[in-house]
C-alpha cells in the first residue's frame, strides 16, 4: 500500500555555530505510520523533531505538510526535557487538560476526558500535585498523558519512557500501540532501547552521526497487535539484528 | 589666616558674601573663606546647627528663629535684609491679558504662590485685605522656579512670587507687577516699611569658640554691605557671577536692603520683632520669641 507522505523534508540544512547537524537532508514521513528514530547521542534526533514542529528555524530547505500549513497542524509532543515543558503553576491534572483548552471543550468534558485517560493508564499519582512535587517518572507520565489527551495530527515522542519504571514502561508501550492502532496518528518516537524501537515501529529511521544522514529506513513487517510473543518473532529479531549491525557500524565510524 | 566655612545659596540675598569674596574683603580681614553652596535654606539651617558651616551668607528670619525657639542661640544674625515696595522681593504679578490691575481683580482668577505656610499666609492676608474672600480665587503652591512656566502656559493668571522670578517674568513680558512690598503692608501696615525677613548668620560655636574671628568676619561682612551701597556696579558684577541671573536683567533685578546691625534703629528692631510675631501668629515659628538676643554681640 502506498501512502502519501505526511511530512516531506527537502534539502534541510541546520547548523549550530560551526557545527552542521543537517546538510541537505531529505526525508518522507508516510501518513499514519509509526516511525522509530534510532541513532547515537547528539546525532540530531531531537533537533529533527523541533525542526519539523517549527520550534527552531531551519537554515535552509523546506518542510512540507501534505496540503496543510504548519499552523493548521496540531502536534502532540513529549519533550526529552519533559520536566521543563510542564507548567509548574498548574496541577498535574490541569497540565494534562491544557491542550483541550484550545478545542472549545467545556470544563466538564475536559475533566471527563482526563478522568478517562487516567483510568486507562491506571495512574497512581495524586494529580492535584504540582509538577515540582512529583518524582521524575511521575512527571514524565504526566507529560505523556498531556500529549495523548488530544488527537493530534502528528505525535512526537522524544525518549518518552526514559524515566518510567519497569512495569510502567511495558504498559505504556502497549498503550501507545493501542492508541496508534485506534487512531492511526502519524507518530515519531526516539528511543535508545532497540527492542522498544522495533517493537513499536512500522519503520525504523536509522540516523548516522552528525551531520545526520538516513543510513537505512527499514520496514518492520510484523503484525499488530504485537505482544510479549513478538520478541521471539524471527522477523522482529532479523530487523533488530539488522538495525544493530548498522548502528554499530555507524557509531564506530 | 583663619578659616571660615560659609554656606551660601544662589540668590541675590547673599550678595554681601559674594562681594566680600570678590573684592577681597574677607582676605583683607585675614580670613580664609571656604564657600559651600547649599541651595535649600533648611539644609543651610541644619548645616549651621550641626556646625558643618560657621556662617550662612543668608538665613531666613523665620527659619533662624524657629531654630532658636528649639535651641536658643543656634542662629545668630550679623546683618539683616529688609524688603518693601522699594526693596522688592515678594510681589504679586499677573499675566498682561488677565485683566488684573489691582489685587481685587484677582476675583475668580487662578493664582500660584511660592510654597510654604509663610508665603501662603501673607498672600491670603493681602488678598483678604483687598476684599477677596477664600473661594473667590484659587491659590496653588508651587516651586518659585515653575511660576514662569505656568503663567506662560496660561494655567494660572497671576502669582505671588519672589525675585528674581518676578523680574524675569516682567522682562519676558509674561507678567506685569501688581503689587510689591506685600509683607511690609500686611505685617507693618505700610508697603514702604522695612520688613526684615532674612540676614547673614553665624553659628553658636563660631560665636563662642572663636569670638575674635567671628568679630572679624562680621566686620568684613559690614564692609561688604558698605561696598554694595557705595559701588552698586561692583555688586551687580558679583551678582552676575554668582547667581544664575540672565545678563539682560542683571541690572534690573531689585535688591533687598542690606543692613548692618550697627545701623539698626530701635524701630527697625521692633519691625523685625513684629515680623517674627506675625510668623508666630500664623504658626511658622512655634513659640513667641524675643529677637534681640539673637542679634550677635561681640
Amino acid at each position, binding site marked *: 500500500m502506498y501512502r502519501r507522505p505526511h511530512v516531506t523534508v527537502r534539502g534541510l540544512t541546520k547548523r549550530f555555530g560551526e557545527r552542521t547537524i543537517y546538510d541537505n537532508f531529505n526525508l518522507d514521513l508516510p501518513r499514519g505510520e509509526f516511525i522509530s528514530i534510532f541513532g547515537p547521542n547528539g546525532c540530531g534526533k531531537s533537533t529533527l523533531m523541533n525542526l519539523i514542529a517549527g520550534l527552531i528555524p531551519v537554515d535552509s530547505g523546506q518542510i512540507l505538510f501534505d496540503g496543510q500549513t504548519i499552523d493548521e497542524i496540531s502536534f502532540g509532543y513529549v519533550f526529552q526535557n519533559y520536566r521543563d515543558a510542564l507548567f509548574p503553576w498548574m496541577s498535574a491534572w490541569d497540565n494534562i487538560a491544557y491542550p483541550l483548552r484550545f478545542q472549545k471543550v467545556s470544563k466538564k468534558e475536559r475533566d471527563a476526558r482526563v478522568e478517562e485517560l487516567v483510568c486507562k493508564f491506571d495512574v497512581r499519582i495524586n494529580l492535584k500535585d504540582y509538577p515540582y512535587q512529583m518524582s521524575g517518572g511521575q512527571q514524565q507520565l504526566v507529560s505523556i498523558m498531556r500529549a495523548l489527551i488530544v488527537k493530534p495530527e502528528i505525535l512526537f515522542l522524544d525518549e518518552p519512557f526514559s524515566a518510567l519504571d519497569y512495569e510502567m514502561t511495558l504498559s505504556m508501550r502497549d498503550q501507545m500501540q493501542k492508541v496508534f492502532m485506534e487512531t492511526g496518528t502519524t507518530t515519531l518516537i526516539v528511543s535508545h532501547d532497540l527492542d522498544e524501537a522495533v517493537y513499536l515501529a512500522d519503520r525504523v529511521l536509522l540516523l548516522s552521526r552528525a551531520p545526520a544522514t538516513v543510513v537505512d529506513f527499514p520496514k518492520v513487517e510484523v503484525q499488530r497487535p504485537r505482544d510479549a510473543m513478538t520478541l521471539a518473532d524471527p522477523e522482529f529479531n532479523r530487523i533488530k539484528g539488522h538495525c544493530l549491525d548498522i548502528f554499530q557500524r555507524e557509531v564506530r565510524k | 589666616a583663619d578659616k571660615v566655612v560659609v554656606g551660601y545659596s544662589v540668590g541675590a540675598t547673599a550678595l554681601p558674601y559674594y562681594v566680600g569674596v570678590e573684592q577681597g574683603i574677607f582676605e583683607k580681614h585675614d580670613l580664609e573663606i571656604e564657600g559651600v553652596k547649599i541651595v535649600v535654606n533648611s539644609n543651610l539651617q541644619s548645616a549651621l546647627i*550641626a556646625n558643618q558651616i560657621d556662617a550662612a551668607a543668608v538665613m531666613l528670619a523665620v527659619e533662624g528663629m524657629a531654630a532658636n525657639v528649639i535651641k536658643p542661640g543656634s542662629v545668630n544674625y550679623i546683618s539683616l535684609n529688609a524688603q518693601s515696595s522699594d526693596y522688592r522681593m515678594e510681589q504679586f504679578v499677573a499675566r498682561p491679558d488677565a485683566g488684573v490691575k489691582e489685587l481685587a481683580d484677582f476675583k475668580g482668577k487662578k493664582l500660584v504662590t511660592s510654597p510654604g505656610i509663610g508665603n501662603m499666609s501673607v498672600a491670603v492676608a493681602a488678598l483678604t485685605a483687598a476684599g477677596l474672600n477664600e473661594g473667590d480665587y484659587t491659590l496653588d503652591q508651587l516651586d518659585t522656579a515653575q511660576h514662569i512656566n505656568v503663567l506662560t502656559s496660561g494655567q494660572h493668571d497671576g502669582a505671588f512670587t519672589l525675585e528674581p522670578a518676578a523680574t524675569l517674568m516682567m522682562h519676558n513680558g509674561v507678567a506685569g507687577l501688581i503689587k510689591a512690598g506685600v509683607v511690609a503692608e500686611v505685617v507693618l501696615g505700610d508697603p514702604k516699611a522695612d520688613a526684615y525677613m532674612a540676614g547673614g548668620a553665624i553659628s553658636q560655636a563660631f560665636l563662642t569658640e572663636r569670638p575674635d574671628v567671628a568679630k572679624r568676619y562680621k566686620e568684613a561682612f559690614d564692609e561688604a554691605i558698605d561696598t554694595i551701597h557705595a559701588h552698586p556696579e561692583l555688586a551687580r558684577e558679583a551678582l552676575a557671577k554668582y547667581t544664575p541671573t540672565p545678563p539682560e536683567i542683571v541690572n534690573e533685578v531689585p535688591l533687598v536692603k542690606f543692613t548692618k546691625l550697627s545701623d539698626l534703629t530701635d524701630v527697625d528692631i521692633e519691625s523685625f520683632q513684629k515680623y517674627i510675631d506675625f510668623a508666630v501668629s500664623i504658626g511658622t515659628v512655634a513659640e513667641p520669641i524675643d529677637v534681640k538676643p539673637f542679634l550677635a554681640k561681640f
Partner: protein
Amino acid sequence: MKLKKLQKLRPLIGVFGLLAIWQLVVMGEIVDPVLLPPPGKTFVAAWDGLFGSGKLAFDFGKTVERSLMGIALAAAIGIPVGVVLGASEKVYRSVEFVIDFFRSTPASAVFPLFLLFFGVGDQTKIYIAAFGASLAIIFNTAYGVMNARKTRVLAARVMGAPAWQRMLVVLLESMPQTFIGLRTGATLALVLMITAEMLLGSVDGLGLRVFEEQQLFNMPAMYAAILLAGVLGYAINLSFFLLERTFVHWAGR
C-alpha cells in the same frame, strides 16, 4: 508550634535594629538631637499626629490613596506592555532608548513637563507616580520575559495555544521578575508621590507634611512623617511579597 509563631516576628529584628542604631546615634551625640530627634520623641509626634490633634492620619490616608491609584495604573499599563515588549527582543531594543531615557531623568527635572501637560492638580501627581512606576515595571517584566526559559512557551505553541495564551505562559514564566518589578515600581510610585507632594504644592499628603514640618523646624513631626512613609513602603512591599508567595508557589523549584 510556638517557635513557628516566633518566626513570624523575625521582621521585628530589623525594626528594633534600626531603632537601636538610631537611639545610639542620638545618645552618642554623633548628630545634634535637635536635628535628629530620638526615636521616642518621634513616636510621640507620630502618635499625636495619627491619633491626637494632628492631621498626620489624614495626610497619610491621602498619600496611601493616591499612591495606590498610581500603582494600580502603573501595573495595568506596565505588565501587559512589558510582556509584549519582552516577547520580542527586537521590539524591545527599538524602544529601549525611550524607557532607559525616562528612567534616568530625575523626576524633579520632568515635573515641569507634567505640569505643562496635566496642570497642578492631584491628578498630575498620580500620573507622575504612575509614569515612573510603569517604566520600572515595563523594564523588569520585559527582562523577566527575555530571560525566561523558552521551553514552556514552545511547549504551549506546539500544543496549539493561540498567541494570547502563549503570552500568558510567558507572563507566568516571568512572574518572579514581574513581582520584583511591581515592588520596585510600587516603591518608586510612593517616592515620587511624596516628592511631588513636597515640590509641586499640595494641600495634603505625607510629602506636604514633611515639607511643612521642615519649614516649622519641627523635627520630631518631620521624622514622624518620614517614618510613616518608610513604614508605608514596607507595608506595600510586604503585601506584594505575600501575594507573590501565595501566587508564585513554584518560584525556585
